[in-house]
Every structure is written in C-alpha cells, then in structure tokens.
C-alpha cells in the first residue's frame, strides 16, 4: 500500500542543510554537526534520499594523507525542488485563515515530489 508521508523533522533539517549551498559537496560529519543528528539517524535519511534520487552520493577523488576517502553528498535538481518546497514559509493567506482548509501548499508540493511508501 502506497501512501504519502510527510518529511520528518530530521529529514527536513538534512534537506535544509544541503539546500543552504546546493552546489557544494558535504561530508557526513559536517551534516551531522549542522543538523545535530547522530550517525545512526543521519545515514538512514541520506540513504533513503539517495534511493529516491533526491541526493547524490560520491566518494572523494583523492584521499587526504593518512585518511581514507570520504563519502560526499549533494542535492540533485529534484532534491533541490523538494527541499525548497519543504522549507518554504507558510503562505500569509493560510496563516490568516483565508486559504482553503487542508495541507499547506508548500508541504504538499514537497510530499508530492517524492512518494514514500509505508
């Protein structure tokens, strides 16, 4: 059974961290520090995002001396759209109660950007 599922707050924070400078490759530890997530939470999120084509992962071309090559992450175009939609502020009309009842458009767009099955 497929259903739409909202981004979790942790996923939104990862998307926001990646969205800050979309063209820059990020390390896992940097993302963990930025989002405050532990590795056991951060990496499953990155893995799911990569599975869905929102994030692209790659290994460093060259390793620093004495250290292994690191894994790098960056948003794809789809991921950038989803992250932007998820991070969009709540529309004024909705705050004032004039918008139609239901989910906020930005959140809905983000949810539609990716189908999450559960």
């Amino acid at each position, binding site marked *: *059974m*497929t259903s739409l*599922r909202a*981004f*979790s707050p*942790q*996923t939104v924070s990862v998307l926001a961290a990646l969205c800050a400078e979309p063209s820059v490759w990020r*390390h*896992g*530890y940097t993302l*963990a520090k930025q989002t405050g997530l*532990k*590795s*056991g*939470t*951060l*990496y*499953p*999120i*990155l*893995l*799911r995002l990569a*599975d*869905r084509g929102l994030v692209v*992962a790659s*290994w460093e071309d060259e390793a620093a001396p004495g*250290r*292994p*090559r*690191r*894994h790098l992450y960056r948003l794809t175009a789809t991921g950038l759209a989803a992250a932007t939609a998820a991070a969009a502020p709540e529309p004024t009309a909705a705050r004032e109660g004039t918008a139609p009842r239901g989910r906020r458009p930005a959140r809905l767009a983000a949810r539609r950007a990716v*189908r*999450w*099955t*559960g």
Partner: protein
Amino acid sequence: VDRLSRLAAAALRWCARLLAGRTEWAEAILAEAENVPAGCQRLAWLGGGLRLVFRESMIMRKAGAICAFAAAVGWVASLSWTRSPVNRVTVANRVSVLVTVALLAGLWLAGRRLVGPAGAGRTQRLVRAGGYATVLALTLGKVSVERMRGPADLGPGAGGLLWTGEALFLLMMAIFTAVVIMATAQRSPVTTGTLLRGIAAGLPIGIAVFLFLPLGVVRYQASRVLPAVPQGTLGAFAWVAVLVAPAVAGVLAVRRFPSSQALPPAAGRASVFSARLGMAFALYGAGTDGSAESEARIRQGVAAGLVAGLTGAMLAVLLGTATIALLPHDSQLLGWLYPHLSRAAILPAEQGAGSNAAGYLLLLLAVPFAGFGIGSIGAMMATPDLARPPGGGPPGDDPPTASPPPDGGTDRSSDNGTEPVVSLA
C-alpha cells in the same frame, strides 16, 4: 574508550557485508569516523553505524522469522511424536514430518538463490508466513487423522499404497511451498496484485469444496455442515467454484497488469520456466507475437490460476482434515456431523473418516492442476495480442493499446510487489 572504538570499527567493518549492495554506506561511516574527535564521540559515531547496519539488513526480522519457524516446527514435531504405537503408519508419519521440514528449509534456501529473499512488502511476508503455517498445520492434521485409520490400513499389502500416498502428499507440499516462495520473493515474476487475486479466487474454492466434502472424498449424505442445502447443490457450487474462480483470477490478472513500463524484473531460470510451462500448457497452437509484455501478462494469468487452485485445495483439505482430526475430541462437533448415529456406532464412522481423508490427496492434485489450466485459458482469452488473428485482422479490430498510467508510469503500487518499501526516519 579508544579500545572500544577500535572494536566497534572492526565490528562495523565485518558487519558491513550484511548490507548486500549497500556496503558503501557502512564504509562511509567508517571513513568519516576518522574525522570525528577520538573518544566517546567517535564511539557513538561508530555505534550509529552499527545501528544502521542492523536496521538496514533487517537482521532482527530475519532472526525472528527463523526462531518462529523453529518454534513451529518443534511444536508440530512434538505433537506428532506422541506416544502412538510404532507401526507402519507411525513410521510414515514421522518420515513425512521430517521430510516436510527439510522441504520447507531447503526450498527457502534454494529460493533465495533463484529469486532472492522474501519481498520487502508486508503482503509478501504475510503470504509467505501463511503458506508455511498452512503446510505445517496440514502436516499436523494429516498425522492426527492417520492415527484414526482402521486395522485394514495396517495389515500386510497396505504399505505400498501408504508410501505412495506419502510421496504424493510430499510432492504437493513441495509444489505449494515452491509457488509460495517464488510468488513472494524479491525477484518474483508475479506481481503482488496477481498473488492477491489468486488467493482471493482460491478462498471460495476452498470453502465450497469443504462444504461439499467435509469428511473426506466420500458421498456421505448425512453430514450437516449446511443442513438446509442439498448435497447435490453443494456439489454444484463446488464445481462452479473450481471451474470459474481460476478463470476469473486469470482474466483479472491479465487485464489489471500494468503496461510494459512496469514489467516485473526477470527472475532467472524459474521465470523462464514458468512462462514456457504456461505457453506449453495453454497456448499450444494459439499463436502469440512473443512480445515481452504478452508473455508477462500470460504469466500473471497462469500464476493467478495456479495460486487460486493451490489456495483452494490447501484450504479445503486443511479444513476437512481439521474437522476429521477433531472428531474424537469434540463431542459437540461429533453430534453435529453424525446426528443420526449412536455413540456405539461412532467409532466405525470415525475410522471411515480417517480412511476417507486419504481421498483428499485427489483434491490436492486435481484442483491446482485445474486452476493452472483454467487460469491459462483465461489468460489466453484476456490477452489482446493473442486474440489477434495472424496477418493483422479486420480494420478496427485491433486490440486496445495499453495507455500509460496517469502518473506517467511511476505508480506501481497496486500491482508491483517489487517496489522497495522505504520510509523516512
């Protein structure tokens, strides 16, 4: 703490192999650990990596499934090994239990190599667990029923028939288990929709056949499973169910199969085998354009019919065997099924029921075979390309082309069980 960190890193490096195809994620955490400050922070970082491996490899679920299987096998074996006198039937039953358990385990291992492990979907896991439970329950019921056999089955000359029956029973259990494993595997050639349609079609078959033959394959007029309905009517219902339900399942499986964008992945030799078998059985001389989509559609129809037949046969035999096995223990059931018999006359009736249960083997053989054939015919009739006569056909008689799904082919939720289940933390 540093020593613990080194231990955690070694454990993560070793456990990474559990993430088949995703080891790079564990390696990424290991590589990143070099940049985390040494001490508790690095240890926590590596602990998170181990958590990722355990979650993604679903090792706890696998361990739980193996433990549940072992417990169920132990329970069935303990009930089958009760203090029954050692005679030919007892020996046959014990051999049957051991071979059944070996079949379940062996086919599971073989299935992992051929079509992969169980699918990630809840439906596939439930169907697989239900299939295994059905086989074990039927084995237990058979052992209980065969204890009720009369002296004629224990005498000289009865051994050949007994062992032939055991071999046929084990053969059907192997076929049923193989179909369950194939249909619920990650690389199954059968979609979840087809599987569910086959099961849904098999339920009325099982119930109708059980109502007609609740005490074995015998014309026993006095059974009162449905007192108000004549036995002939029950028989007609059973025949209609056996003949119609697989065809309906086959037609629906073909028609609801998504367009070529959503073809199930190839499943290796097993997939080719099933397609060829379906072609050879139902499509001999019918002609086909041989396209991949037609073959996939036909495969769905054949599979739906086979699943319907197997489900119906197993359900009918399971219900009937359980009824017979409960006869000596449940006086209310006894009075309901044998209202005209005195208590003194019940023992021969019970013994008769035990022998009649052997006739269920015919159901186990015939109903799946019928489902396979009828499902194939239904698939042949419902596949548009096969209905087209050679050389084109009259204008305007072309089969309807499959229109793309409204979401552009990405929505495979209803008919594809191979889609990975993902969720965000």
